[in-house]
């Protein structure tokens, strides 16, 4: 899922400094699971912003709503009545949600309350780690199910580089070397010889480097 982290409250406050009334929109999707933009976080953010503004002698009125998903137009529709009389919308979704709201209500000031970070999952309670770089051409079958594109700091496809030591990456003792993990897993699988094959350069045109991407399923298209 998408992992996002709320921006510092002073940054959010600065984006709506000249507003009297704002709508805060949470999302019940990924950002609820990573505890950064669900219903609870939306209410907490709204009240924090109100308190902050009251202390500044410039009270702020807030309205809150949590969409099932902000990355689907049908769930954005429900905001129609709520956005009418606010000066801005603060979206607590990932960047997709912010853009969907801005697109639907094109004359409304819409700001992001979150930094959308990566695609990953939780490894311990309260810890999320990046696992996929959305390259558009998955090679996990060649690397023991561990992604070198995103988990190796240099995206090496023929690793490990000379900085790998004691299982850690050269950039930090807190970062596992993806290629050590790949090596260990391939060893268990009895497939170390696979690592001797020279992996060709990656076709990044299937990644973001080919411009914005689109996925189409004609079988489910309507009309």
């Amino acid at each position, binding site marked *: 899922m998408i992992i996002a982290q709320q921006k510092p409250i002073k940054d959010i406050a600065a984006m709506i400094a000249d507003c009297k009334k704002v709508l805060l929109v949470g999302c019940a999707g990924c950002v609820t699971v990573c505890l950064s933009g669900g219903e609870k976080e939306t209410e907490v953010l709204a009240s924090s912003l109100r308190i902050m503004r009251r202390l500044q002698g410039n009270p702020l009125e807030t309205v809150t709503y949590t969409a099932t998903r902000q990355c689907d137009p049908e769930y954005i529709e429900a905001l129609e009545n709520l956005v009418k009389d606010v000066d801005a919308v603060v979206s607590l979704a990932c960047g997709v949600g912010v853009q969907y709201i801005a697109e639907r209500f094109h004359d409304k000031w819409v700001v992001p309350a979150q930094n959308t970070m990566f695609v990953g999952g939780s490894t311990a309670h309260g810890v999320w780690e990046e696992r996929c770089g959305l390259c558009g051409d998955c090679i996990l079958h060649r690397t023991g199910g561990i992604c070198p594109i995103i988990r190796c700091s*240099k995206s*090496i496809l023929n690793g490990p580089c000379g*900085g790998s030591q004691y299982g850690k990456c*050269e950039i930090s003792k807190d970062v596992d070397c993806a290629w050590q993990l790949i090596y260990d897993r391939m060893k268990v699988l009895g497939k170390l010889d696979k*690592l*001797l094959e020279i992996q060709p350069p990656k076709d990044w045109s299937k990644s973001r480097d080919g411009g914005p991407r689109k996925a189409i399923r004609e079988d489910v298209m309507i009309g």
Partner: protein
Amino acid sequence: MKTESKLQKLLDSGHFAVTAEIGPPKHASAHGIRHHAHMLKDYVDATNITDCQTAIVRLSSIASAVHILDCGLEPIVQMTCRDRNRIAIQSDLLGAYSLGVRNLLCLSGDHQKFGNEPSAKNVYDIDSIQLIYLMRRMRDEKLFFSGEPIKEHEPRFFIGAVANPFADPFEFRVARLEKKVEAGAEFIQTQCIFDMERFERFMEMVRERGIHERVHILAGVTPLKSWRAAKYLQTSVSGMIVPDDVVERLKKAEDPKREGIEICIEQIKHIRNIPGVHGVHIMAIAWEEVVPEIVERSGLFPRPKVE
């Protein structure tokens, strides 16, 4: 494939090669590079020009190479995958060749986190093994990376790579070296060696697989100035093993700099007797002036001449 590289001629004719390293400056003057090139020119067969080493912005390695050539010394241009995509790499290397550069060393490059632009966007479009393979193909099959033919004047570099016997997983290090040779590396320079025992074990595995017969291996050495420098390499540089007795020896020394030079000379003499090693690569980081003495006292002077 024969190239116009003097280093290749020397290695191919069985000489024990000596290379050194020159780090370009953090400014726009070639004065220092030229000074070092003049100083080293009779003592080494070629010098590496680092490519923004540790991700610190420095005078370009190709521009530096031109100054070095001008001083009568053969450069080995280092090319990292960190800063350029495949378009820039090919363009820069065509340029380097047109300027007279004949040796190329392919490496992934230190992560930008270590340098003076830690918030830079890195590239890593291709990795070092892919770079070796693609350059070899460019030369031998006259094909650009894309597969498009090079109609004429393909760059004919003598292609090198690096190996680090001190990184992990150790058992895979020789396999990875072999992979670089398979990809097309013709000479290898190793990370600086302080742990001779581990290097000996590495070379044993290299010989078992016959890799030393397919590639020229130049063992890396670094003269240390102080025990603190040794300690720093031991604790803060990943992919390095510095045994405690090296640190201790420098600590006890009356003149640590002298001792550092002595250790380095001993290491070279030892390395010369390891079967399968075809040369040394002296990385005197910011201490280039000691290289002539080290070469001379290691019995590697004068350097052989090749036509």
